[in-house]
């Protein structure tokens, strides 16, 4: 079966010309539809860079390799095109957008994606109904959805709002970048419930995390260890437990 997300020998740098620094260095990874893959790795391994390169943030330059989603090359697309194709990034640090209420923002995003795909806009009543259902599941206060995006939100609220957006937009492929950071255990469960509700045979997920903790709640099909810009080890879910016990040094030492 062809993988949904296929990354082959991907290299990328960050920074301007002479000061460009290689962060991804020949990274290869396949995520089939219906699977959840975790990426773990020490600080500075290139985890966040991978999520930004896949979603098209400026400031990163792809210097080699390829990345395809359902067979389509995504690296040449604008960020909004990738979003319309179904790529979604749950940000490690969600951004505050003063003056733009959550509902307005998400509805604008949803309709922009639909337009790009040649679909009809969602009606206001349908949107409100869907929003109400999702908010209920995530324990989000309706008042919060009228406030400007992320402004004055706590760390946990910001992460729950990321999941709210994900559930509203129903993307095909999800990248969760350190979604567990800044969450207490209750918030972590709520967020994980949301993510698990999104698991679907037609959907792929990449869960980037520092710690094994999140993977107690979101069970991965595969665990990859990212170090020095490459995947150096791949295993089943129990690899995360070994990493927790032996540390990156132990596992990296074994791989090297």
């Amino acid at each position, binding site marked *: 079966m062809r993988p949904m997300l296929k990354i082959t020998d991907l290299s990328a740098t960050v920074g301007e010309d002479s000061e460009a620094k290689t962060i991804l260095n020949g990274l290869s990874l396949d995520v089939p539809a219906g699977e959840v893959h975790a990426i773990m790795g020490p600080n500075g391994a290139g985890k966040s860079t991978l999520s930004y390169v896949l979603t098209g*943030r*400026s400031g990163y330059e792809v210097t080699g390799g390829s990345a395809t989603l359902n067979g389509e090359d995504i690296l040449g697309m*604008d*960020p909004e095109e990738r979003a319309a194709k179904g790529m979604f990034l749950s940000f490690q640090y969600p951004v505050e*957008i003063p*003056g733009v209420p959550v509902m307005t923002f998400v509805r604008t*995003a949803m309709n*922009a994606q639909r337009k*790009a795909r040649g679909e009809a806009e969602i009606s206001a009543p349908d949107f409100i109904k869907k929003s109400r259902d999702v908010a209920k599941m995530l324990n989000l206060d309706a008042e919060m959805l009228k406030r400007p995006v992320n402004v004055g939100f706590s760390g946990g609220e910001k992460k729950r709002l990321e999941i709210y957006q994900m559930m509203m937009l129903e993307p095909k492929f999800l990248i969760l970048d350190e979604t567990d950071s800044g969450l207490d255990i209750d918030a972590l469960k709520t967020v994980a419930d949301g993510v698990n509700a999104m698991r679907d045979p037609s959907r792929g997920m990449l869960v980037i995390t520092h710690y094994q903790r999140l993977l107690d709640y979101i069970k991965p099909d595969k665990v990859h260890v990212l170090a020095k810009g490459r995947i150096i080890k791949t295993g089943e879910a129990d690899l995360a437990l070994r990493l927790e016990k032996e540390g990156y040094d132990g596992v990296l030492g074994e791989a090297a």
Partner: protein
Amino acid sequence: MTTALRDFIKNPTAAELELVARYGMQPEDARRERAFLAFAETGLPHRRMEGWKWTDFKAALKALETPAAASAKDPLPDDGALVFRFTPKGFEAPAKLPDGIRMVVQPGVQAFPGAEDVPMGALAAALAGGGKRPATLAFEITSSEAPRLHFVFEGAGEASFARIVFLVRSGASLTLTESYLGGAGLTASVLEFDLERGAKLNRTIFQRGGAGEALAVTGIAHLGAEAEMTQTTLAFGAKVARMETRVVHQASGSKLNLNAAYLSGKGFHADITTNVRHGAPSCVTRQLTKGAVLDGGTGVFQGKFFVPRKTGQHTDADMQHQALLLEDGAQVFAKPELEIYADDVECAHGNTCGALDDAQMFYLRQRGIPETQARAMLTEAFIAEALGMADEAVRDVLLAEAQNWLSS
């Protein structure tokens, strides 16, 4: 006659000579003469004058000519409002005004103290009138429930001048909207406000002009004890456009909200200049100016708070100016000034100019919002804050006008 008039201004430009000739055609009036002399001292203000270094009328206005572009359509609603219309040659007012609003069309010029501080205001006072147009249009407001007064400045012509004076009596309130729609080569208006104890004024200025026009709107307000003034400006600029406001807190407890947004595209210049004097203790000023400028456009913000040593005690004043340079080649000049001599005051100011935030742009685009739409959304949200205190009859229209500009 011509020779004598020529002597009013040193080395006059063609445009200044035409202004002198216009003055010569007005009926003789000692107060008119004083106003014109105040203007003539400098002639059209220019870059070598402090306060005008970024907005040069002398250079921009070579001659008085009817511009090619017609007036813009007035976006502000006029339902429920009393409409007054100034064109280069005409003036229209409702036949009847309700109780609580008294209008006096004065053929003569009212005295204009402080004219030398505002050369374009002095020019407006000196050249207003003639034909059907009042030299001074005066209002006395005695009601707290008077309908909104809506002033429209439009119509093709070489030049249009107006002077309007408002006296808002104790406890009364005035809601005023002004639409400057272009059409004249030079538009200059001066509006004066005298707010008695506890009087209220909510003033909104909408300005859109052609790329070949010059425009100066001068507002001068004196606030009595516990009077409240709120002003909101939305300016799209012109070849040169200056929106100047001078406010004096002259008795304690008065409050001023002074907000403006300017949006300048290629070839447009919008200048927001303000001067607030805290001439009485315990007065409050809140000022917020926001700007967004495209390649080839210019924005100017000059704000000054003056707080005298004795009379300015317990002043509470805040001045914020924030500008977005939306493209390379956009220009913004800013000069925020606090001149404070009193020691027991709270005065703050902030001034920022920059591009849209990359992280915000990426966040919107990652969610599927295309770049131009994302930019418009962020800019609109940024600008909207400065329009939030406009009268609710026009607030949404101002936002929509800003939106249209941002998405085109």
